[in-house]
């Protein structure tokens, strides 16, 4: 068994394509989330998506078609909760996400019992991706990429200083909602491969990793997408070669990358 033999399997090729595209979208969207200290949002969304998946499975509705609208509604709700400091935004998000997770687990265990489905949703499986997922992923990553290219300057402005961007006429609410919607689709699509407990790492790690070393927004945006995708490829390869869970493998590679970048930063600092 060697690395290249993995592309003989259609499901692996599918996982590779979907994963790479989702990673690109997640890394880009993550820059804006992490730098605005909103990383919690993607964590909350992944748990809500799990709840939606569970209900869809039990009710026999197509999981993706059900989970995407639910996640979109949740993302807008979370965005509003987060804007409103009086309601303890972060507490409210934690509340929403653990409740959704609990409801999901409850629904499944009462009706079908905890089985491989639940495990797959929680920890991820690359076996669950269909051709349909490939199409949706291609469209999603293209939309995110085009948004980042053509609205790059607006995204920078509102990520750096929302009030200033708003006062100079940028439609901040519009972009916030677009970003939240794209984020929820990314999470729903990526969740089955990464698992509900690990998907948010795809959005959070690349930015935190690259900003240790890179100090301009453009560098961080470009480096995050590259580092994110490299980590994905290495992680998936490890998962294939050593039969380890895909989500966990990818997250651990991301962790190693983070430590590496941190060490580079410390080394530079020491050198002055």
């Amino acid at each position, binding site marked *: 068994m060697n690395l290249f033999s993995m592309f003989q399997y259609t499901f692996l090729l599918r996982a590779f394509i979907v994963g790479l595209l989702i990673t690109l979208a997640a890394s880009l969207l993550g820059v804006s989330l992490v730098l605005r200290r909103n990383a919690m949002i993607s964590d909350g969304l992944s748990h809500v998506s799990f709840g939606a998946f569970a209900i869809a499975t039990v009710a026999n509705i197509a999981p993706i078609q059900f989970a995407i609208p639910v996640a979109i509604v949740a993302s807008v709700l979370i965005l509003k909760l987060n804007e409103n400091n009086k309601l303890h935004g972060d507490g409210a998000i934690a509340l929403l996400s653990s409740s959704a997770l609990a409801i999901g687990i409850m629904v499944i265990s009462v009706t079908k019992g905890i089985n491989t489905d639940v495990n797959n949703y929680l920890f991820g499986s690359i076996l669950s991706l269909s051709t349909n997922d490939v199409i949706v992923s291609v469209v999603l990553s293209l939309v995110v990429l085009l948004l980042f290219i053509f609205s790059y300057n607006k995204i920078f402005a509102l990520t750096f200083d929302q009030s200033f961007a708003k006062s100079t006429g940028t439609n901040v609410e519009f972009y916030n909602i677009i970003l939240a919607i794209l984020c929820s689709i990314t999470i729903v699509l990526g969740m089955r491969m990464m698992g509900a407990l690990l998907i948010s790492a795809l959005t959070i790690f690349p930015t935190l990793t690259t900003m240790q070393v890179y*100090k301009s927004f453009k560098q961080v945006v470009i480096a995050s997408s590259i580092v994110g995708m490299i980590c994905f490829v290495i992680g998936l390869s490890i998962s294939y070669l050593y039969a380890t869970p895909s989500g966990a493998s990818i997250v651990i590679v991301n962790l190693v990358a983070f430590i590496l970048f941190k060490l580079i930063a410390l080394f530079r600092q020491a050198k002055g």
Partner: protein
Amino acid sequence: MNLINVNHLTLGYEHQKVIKDLSFTVEKGDFITIIGANGSGKSTLVKGLLGLIKPMQGDIQYHIDTKQIGYMPQETKIDATFPASVEEIVLSGTLNRLGHRPFYGKKERKLADDSLALLDILDLKKKSFADLSGGQRQKVLLSRALSATRELLILDEPSNNLDFSSREEFYKIIHRLNKEEGITILMITHDLDMHAIAGNKIIAFEDQEIFVGKIEDYRRKMHESL
């Protein structure tokens, strides 16, 4: 020439009124200092003027393009670890000129350079915001505001967090922008020495009322109350 007319303005959040029935005008060339204790309504007024919150009663009439208001937030409100170059930040001030164009052109880049040069920090252009001192950061945020407009600047506590000499330098710059460049300035401060040297008008948020008027009149009033 009036730039902004504020008529019987009431501002606040949900059911709490923070500012009640405030009227004043901003004329071209004014340097208006806004003072008051924490929580007295200074920042609320700025949010109202920037259109970030809507009036509960009364109105604000703008005789300039509302996008032509250069806002400089408190430096401490900006994440100091944010990975951004000075160039990226100052260029973002010109965003209001882009309209539906997605990218900055030569004009915007020139304007950003001019704004940096005006504050004598062109040498910081390629530096990272995270590596700057508090005083340098303030100047970068002021440059960004200058890239947005040469009409009207709204400065939110620019002296906060600065040591004495940086603060003096910063005030000198603002006065120069007002006198030499003819830029109208609204400046919030809780630096009480300030109103002795700054501006022609004052809005003072006091316990029961809001004083609006010429700075000499305010000084006379303070003197009388002593």
